[in-house]
């Protein structure tokens, strides 16, 4: 591989809040998200529609400004960066794959020229970029480098979008639903490509997905619920995550048993476990 060695960038958010204005109201898309993604890690973002996953992704890409809290991608504090710094950041440090493969490419040029186009910003900022053929080979579509995009299958088009996203071998790859509307084979191909990119380039990957099978294939998942981190999954195990303010979001089945307002006692056990003991009548003051 002739490309320069890269290492992924860590993603850290603390108390991240994003409020937007719609229909005359202010709505909080994120209500204090604490997230840590280690350098080179692959993390999936799960959660119901409207939970704030795409918003979080967009914030990580510097496309939106947080209303409160901090967000750091490697050494970059995104909230403190001006527009030109964000342009440089997007050109060199982060790659974004939008939902819908066609939205990531210029429809009138080939995959190779799309990769070239995506690398322009990095070149202008003095960053050494890999050859477009290498990038396309990394994602597995080098033979289709010069084919018109309209002739590619949906899976191949998604790989082309992925290639564009990693064109400058960024430290972070943000992918929004990269396997949506793909059949199983294509989905697996895309996931394999993402893993290959992570392995070869070291890029930290943050993927938004609705697909539980995709989530299951990822080493770590973070569930966003109501604008906050609701849980994590690691190696097939689901965990609730204690947030910075000490609150502990319960998993949905536990929440069914312990609805909001339920009085519980949190009791430590001698073996280091903590037991949650609900009160008999189960409810606090009305």
């Amino acid at each position, binding site marked *: 591989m002739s490309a320069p060695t890269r290492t992924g960038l860590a993603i850290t958010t603390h108390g991240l809040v994003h409020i937007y204005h719609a229909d005359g109201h202010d709505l909080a898309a994120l209500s204090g998200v604490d997230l840590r993604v280690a350098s080179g890690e692959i993390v999936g973002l799960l959660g119901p529609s409207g939970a704030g996953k795409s918003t979080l992704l967009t914030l990580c890409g510097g*496309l939106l400004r947080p209303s409160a809290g901090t967000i750091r991608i490697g050494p970059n504090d995104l909230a403190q960066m001006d527009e030109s710094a964000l*342009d440089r950041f997007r050109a060199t440090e982060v790659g974004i794959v*939008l939902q819908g493969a066609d939205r990531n*490419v*210029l429809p*009138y040029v080939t995959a190779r020229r799309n990769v070239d*186009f995506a690398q322009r*910003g990095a070149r202008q900022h003095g960053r050494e970029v890999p050859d477009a053929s290498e990038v396309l080979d990394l994602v597995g579509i080098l033979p289709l480098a010069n084919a018109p995009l309209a002739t590619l299958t949906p899976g191949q088009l998604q790989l082309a979008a992925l290639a564009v996203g990693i*064109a400058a071998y960024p430290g972070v790859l943000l992918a929004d639903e990269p396997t949506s509307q793909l059949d199983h084979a294509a989905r697996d191909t895309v996931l394999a490509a993402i893993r290959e990119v992570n392995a070869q380039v070291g890029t930290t990957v943050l993927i938004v997905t609705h697909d539980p099978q995709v989530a299951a294939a990822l080493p770590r998942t973070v569930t966003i619920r109501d604008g906050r981190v609701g849980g994590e999954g690691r190696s097939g195990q689901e965990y609730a995550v204690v947030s910075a303010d000490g609150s502990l979001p319960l998993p949905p089945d536990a929440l069914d048993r312990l609805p909001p307002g339920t009085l519980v006692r949190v009791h430590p056990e001698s073996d280091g476990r903590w037991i949650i003991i609900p009160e008999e009548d189960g409810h606090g003051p009305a």
Partner: protein
Amino acid sequence: MTWAALRYRPAQALLLAVLTALVVGCAAFAPLYERALAQSLLRDGLSRMPPAATAIELTTSREQGARVRAERVRDIFPTSLAGVYGPGVERWSGRVFVTGSQGVSTVTMWGSPTPCDGLVLDAGRCPQAPFEVLASTAEARLQGWAPGAVISAVEARGIASGPAFASPVTVVGTYTQDELSAGPWAGLRLGGRAGTMSAGLAPTPLMDALVTSDGTFAPDEQASSFVPGAPGWFQVAVSVTYPLNRDAISLESLDGIPGALSALGDEAARELPRIAVSSAVGDLADELAEGRRQVLVIVPLLMAQLALLGVVVLGLVAESAVEQRRPEAALSRLRGGGASGARRLLVAELGAAATVGAPLGLLGALGVTTLVRARWLAPGVPAELPWPTFAAAGLGLILAWAAIIIAVGRVVREPVADLLRRVPSRQRGRRMGLVDAGVVGVSVAGVVALASGNLAGPLALATPALVALAVGIVLAHLLTPAATLIGRRSLDRGRLTATLTAVQIARRPAVRRIVTIITVAAALATFAVNALVVGQHNRELRARVETGAAVVLTTDSDDPAEVQTALRQVDPAATKATPVAWIRQGSSDSITTMAVIPEEFARVADLAVDPAAFDLRPLQVAGTLPPVITGTRLSVTIGSSAIEELDEVGDAPQRAGEGPIFAVRLGKPGGAEQTLSLDPIPLTSSVPVVFTAEVDCPQGCSLLAIGVDRVGLDYRVLRGRFTITELRGDAGPPAAIGRPDTWIGSGDKNADVLAPYAVPGDLGSPTAVALDLLSARTGVRVTAKGAVGNLPAFVVGSLPPGTTSGGTFQGAGLDGIAVQFQPVGTLPYTPGGPSNVAIVSLRALLDRASTLAPVVGRLQVYLADSSFEAPVRDALGAQGISVTTTVRESDRQALYDGSASAWGLRLAVVVGLLAIVMAALVLVLVVTTAWRPRSRDYAALRMSGVPLAVLRRASALEQGTVVVVAGVAGILCGLLASRLALPMVPLFTRPSATFLADLRPAWSAVGGAAALVLGLLGVVAIVVGTRLVSRAIPARLRERL
């Protein structure tokens, strides 16, 4: 990548290229057309001017003893004109008395270095030595001169004392002048006089010119001084005529001629003898300059507005294109290219498409200019490419790029997240953007300034388009909320088609663009067509007003009766031809007399403007001539008198017993008047008393008034009657004073108060009259009707200086002698004449004189129909009457139709058509660029059960409603623009003193333009609307790209 992007959306690229080509073409066409038009004006002007008019003639004659030398004349001709003027043609002249068979004639002897050029030598040879001459063949035959004959020629000069220079001349040949335009005799009629007599009271025999060599007038043959008896010519003249080289003259060289002529004139005036410079080429230069000035108004007026429309359309097309490229701009921003990178990406693509159009536009402009040269302009206009063409084309391209850059700049600065939205957020409500508000503000200010006359120049020329732009913008902003309201109400009432139509209009941002553009295009088309037709109408009207009839023949006759006789031979009913006499007076501010036969004139003349005003019946009232006395001694017989003295209260009467003084006022030929106070009338007498007085009336004097005068401090009131039984001059019969209705009295005899009066009384005799009077301190008189405004006249223009307090004024009769005119009305203009004219009855003038005075009089024939010209000419010729000039309405109109203004306004056709084409293009473009989402909308409506027929109606109505609303607004704007801007449009190269332009809208043309705009755009709208619905298939709903 740019090329790939262009190939991806070829239709848009083509449209941008076409629109840019239109903008560039409009810009480039203006200087091309201006130049071609100037060349055409030059050629047309040259074709109308005979060679003699465009030549420069330098003339000098002997002055203060200095001999005339042709070399001196040639020396001062400027070398700067040598390129456009040919070598000078020399021509000498002197006047001699020659005794012929009919008496002594004054003959002009013409000399030239090449005397036989332009002549046909019928006998003998060409003169070579001095005082060898050619005589005309007709003259030689008449005089019996054969080649070799020696004739005596004595110089005809004004100095009476002493012998004149005389030299025998030898006739060496005879000539006939074949062409008036050839050789040294160009423009000179050498013959045509043999056997004729001069006009005037003492006619003399005329003789054709003698032609000789220049040696006859050489300086050695000129007298050394003006001392009587000195040998040689006393008075000769030489002219050197430089003909214009019409093949070498250009616009640039013509511009330099007036200045060179002026300098030449100054130098010529310093020479001794002085040299006179004459040429009409300066008029051509002035006319051309004025024509070019007018073109600089008209062409930009039309083309700038079209270009403005093109830029607006291009801007809106660019906006639409940029909207479609939001995802690409987002991608560029997403990949770190920043706003500048996104701008470069989009501008490169759209700008490339526009740039491709620029050379096409230039070629198009060249092509249209070529077509225009071939079809509209004078023949021979060269194909030229003036440098301003490229500058204008460059400006057009810059404007196109500017429109694109502005459209792109607005989008690429948006936040990336907004660019990434699948459905861009739409501005709702009626908020007007800053640019729109600025345009509206500038337009309103421009209209106010233009209407108040405070605006001129380029901005004034663009105001019509700005007006329409402002109205279109405001209408576009009002249409959305109006459509929303209508949609809601229709929904409440369950009207599906109306609801769909209104809602579609309300929710489409493209509607604003379409409304604006159609408004401007309709306004432009309306304005252009109206300007064209109004211009044409006014040219026709002016030609008709200035000519006065279909054909006007000027004759060499001085006898109106003779002309009338000739006309009645071919037009007994006097419905096709009528004589008109013109008599002018000496001073420039005096009024010209136009004498017509009223009832014939009303039938024959072309009363193009306000014909109802030309009711000339008041002229038919026969004028009454005042009585005339002839002789050197006036005698008045007072037959009887009965006058009483009435005292003033309180005062003793003075001059008691003495009657009032008999007085007359006489009018002499030439207009002078004289008041004579004769003797006191006896207060009471039954015995005739005769008064006499010396008068100067050998040719006859008019008796203008009779009455009484009072002398001294005589305060008596005298009342009574006296009779005049005879009043005569000693050389003529008694004056016809007997009819009381030929006198105008003063005062009221039957009044209750003692107020002066003088009233004639009937004595039953044609030569006797009674006078009832009351005189208090001052005289009273009755005035002859023939003296007071005897000749009724219609006045065109203002009354002349010297108009009396009673409104009468002096005009010229047929013989040039003054006649009193009484205005009976005014007329708006003189058909075929100047503005300061008194129109009177020819018959009334013929009562006073039978022939026209020479020099000041001119007799014309007005013809109602040009097809009648030949028979009238023949009839006049049969009476020995020649036609000297002919003026035809068709020729005059052709002259105006060949003016800079006419050619400039013809552009209106092109402008109007292109404006409509642009609007139609926009309609098609806006729908086709958004056809996918629109057809998806309609597919969704079909899926939800809306019938196809309803969708078709709604879609067609949606497009059609916008077209009608915007089109009608545009047409009204076009009419408003016409009112504001047409006064700025020069309709003629030279203003008219008599013709007032009619700038009222040409309603038929406006109606036609309206029908074309609404019809064509309506059809396009309906077709695109229904085609859109035909693509509304349910499968469309699954499309993503």
